[in-house]
């Protein structure tokens, strides 16, 4: 498995999906990012990121039941693939290693 490069927004999205577990679809993902990371992400950018992550094999999606409050449309739930988890871990390790010893400065 070749290394997957993850951009910052992509990492944020993946982490938000992981935090949400079974309930990860666009609306709460956006909420998570806003609340936990304190960042406003444009909805269009989120959809682009989700689309890209799925194409890269970092996310899988499934459709839920059609819901009345969505005008009869189903939710699309996302789950993080093992490969993406590996990539997240790798980038975390790399960052932590770099952080090591710099706590006093920052």
């Amino acid at each position, binding site marked *: 498995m070749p290394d997957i490069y993850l951009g910052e927004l992509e990492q944020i999205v993946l982490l938000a999906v992981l935090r949400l577990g079974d309930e990860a679809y666009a609306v709460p993902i956006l909420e998570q990012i806003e609340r936990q990371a304190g960042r406003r992400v444009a*909805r*269009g950018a989120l*959809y*682009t990121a989700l689309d890209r992550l799925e194409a890269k094999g970092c996310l899988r999606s499934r459709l839920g039941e059609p819901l009345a*409050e*969505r*005008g009869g449309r*189903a*939710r699309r739930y996302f789950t993080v693939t093992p490969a993406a988890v590996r990539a997240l871990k790798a980038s975390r390790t790399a960052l932590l290693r770099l952080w090591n010893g710099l706590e006093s400065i920052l």
Partner: protein
Amino acid sequence: MKLARWILTLAVRDATEREMILGDLEEERAARGGAWYCREATAIAAHAAIRRSPARRRASRSGDRLMSTLLKDIRYGWRGLRKRPMVTLTVAATLALGLGANAAIFNLIDRLVFHPLPFADPHRVVMLAETGPGIEFRKESVSPANFLDWRRQAGALTALTASAWWDANLLEKNDPERVQGALVTGDYFDALGVRPVLGRGFVHDDETFGRHHLVVLGDELWKRRFAGDPSVVGRSITIDGAPYQVVGVAPPRFAFPDGAALWAPLAFDPKTAPTRHNRYLTVFGRLAPGRTLADAQSQMEVIATRLAQQYPDTNRDHGARVYLLSEGWLDEGTGTILSLWQASAFVVLLIACANIANLLLARAAERRREIAVRLALGASRGRVIRELLTESVLLAVLSVGPALAFAWLALRLIRTAMPANIIRFVPGWESLGPDARLFEFTLALAVATACISGILPAVQAARGKVSDALKEGGRTATGRQLLRRAIVVGEIAIALPLLVAAGLGVIGTNRFLNGPQGYDPDGVLTMKLVLPDRTYPDDAARRALVERAVREVTAVAGVADAAAVNNPPASGGSASRGIEIDGHPSADPKNPPSVEYRVVTERYFGVLRLPLVKGRGFNTGDRAESAPVGIVSESLARKFWPGEDPIGRRMKVADTWITVVGISGDIIHDWFLRRNVPTVYRPMAQAPSDYFAVLVRAGGDPAALAGPVRQALLRVDASQPVFDLMTMRRQLSERTIGLQFLAAIMASFAVLALFLAAVGLYAVVAYLIAQRRHEIGLRIALGASAADVLRLTVGQAFRLTLTGTTIGLALSIALSRVMEAALLDIASHDARVFATFAGVLMAAALLAAYIPARRATAIDPMIALRAE
């Protein structure tokens, strides 16, 4: 919100993703509201559009470079636009006006010409017309006998059906109403692909004479007069004094042809063979499966040739044409007028383009130094051009919104300005309004406009020696100024023909509306009656009714005088008859000369104040049993008795020999008939008509008499509806509504063009003065007066304007020739019109030039020179 959803649908092509996004938005809409929804949806669409763009797709192969430069260009362009808000706003507003005008006209053409009829499978529905000598209209062109032969023989067409005009007198709950109906043959509804919502349509058996008193009601009539009661199907109602059984109700909005509100079977009396001579049917059909329009056409030609051999008396030289209904149904001339409008709209857009090009040239001149630096640092010229073009495209796309808003307003105005009784003859009018096609057209036009107006300035900006531009104090190359002047000259040159065309249109229309008619249309009230055969079967009955009607109406208080006529002026109806002059037999007895034919009561000439030039008018002595007489118009006298006195001479009008007893003045019967059409008048008593109009000369306000006069006519026959009751002035106005429209739209374009051309000249003069600040300052310092400076600057503008106007005049003359040919003589060219509009244009242009020139006189030489 629908719009936002629609934009999103356009941008996100993947259905699963779209459903997800729409679902997410829907879920949050309750908490966040509609405005939020729209904003978010558009933003997402923008993201998705960028993601899908071709540059992006290519970029994913060649490593994001192209995409990022495009994005950079857009960002850069956006910053450039925001930095100069005034220029941006001016250009965007100019573009919005130009694009909006085009969008509105596009919508008109799209709806009226390309998609006028709301039928199922419209490209299979055809209309058939007989062609041949003496057939002027294609709508009513087929004789019943020919139709029946066609129907038997044409295999390439299914459901061949005919319709005829029907003025129906509906009497329901003692309230008579004249209803527009159509008599149609069995397959009518099938041919048009329309299914009644209640009951049934007609079948062939319904055409059996004697069993044909059946009716299908239109939706509007059914709801209005029968309260939308479904049990009306099967009931008997009274139409034209006879019982008709209701068999069905048509679907909503179906009112074809001509706004028909009810339909009955067209049945031919078997006792009299169907005529091959009278051509009054409109024929429709549907292409048989697998057959094309060309198949149908060639088959109809074979049939027509056969019929011509079989019945040479009536069918010699007669052919048949098959049109697609959308094409055949359109009035001849509509296409011409609409193309004229579209051409005018394009001219306006072209002027807008010129202005924008000018502004961009100025912008490029300001940025010369900057661009030169970038070129010097190694930017490619192509890259610079692309960046500048991106900026103009961005501008154009930004103006699409306001343009559509402008078009929407214009269309609303156009739609509401047309009276309802005209609209029903214009299929497609009701459906005017923005739609997806309009959006696409406007967007495409905007991008094209941006490229056209942006390419020249962009190329100019990227050209030229870098070293020149970088030199301190380098003046702008003269070439560019030449270009800018040429653009202004061009603008003025194309604005003038538009002004002249509009002027001719307005003058022509005004002449028909307010000019001399040959009679006095003020103070006259007019109304129409159509007598059913059943209640008024013969001449005697009709004569008696007309006489009583005129008598009763004359007795109404406030009525000074009253008369009846078969076709009053400006009513849209006309009647003509072949004539023969005693002693001058016509060369071709089969095709005798035809003249306008009017049947009038005694007081007709008095009521209309139509002068009698010679001889006498009709009087009570002209009875059915007395010698047949007639009055001819001056034009008829001149044409058929040149240099002779027609009084006492004899002529044959529709198989009756009459003696001419008087000569009347000429009038304009209708604007599309030329002025002074040869006309013969006959007394109503000698030649009663089964339809007529009552004309009332009022003592005071004619409109106030409408109620009492209607009451008087109801006293004569309570079952007889009176319709089209209005003043003669109103009737004139309605008859010329098309012309008024034509003139108004052309005039709006002309004003727009004039305005834009003036703005263009203003900008150029201001720019040239800014370039010459230094020189002007020096002149002032050396003692030039304000007048000298004005002469210098305005003089320059004057030369530009004069050149433009001269070219424009040549173009105008060419255009007026075309208009004359296309518009039936309504726009006769007149040297004074040309001179006037050239003057108006010059004045506007000089005024536009004066404003910046005036400012130039206030240049402080100290400041101007210090800037050096």
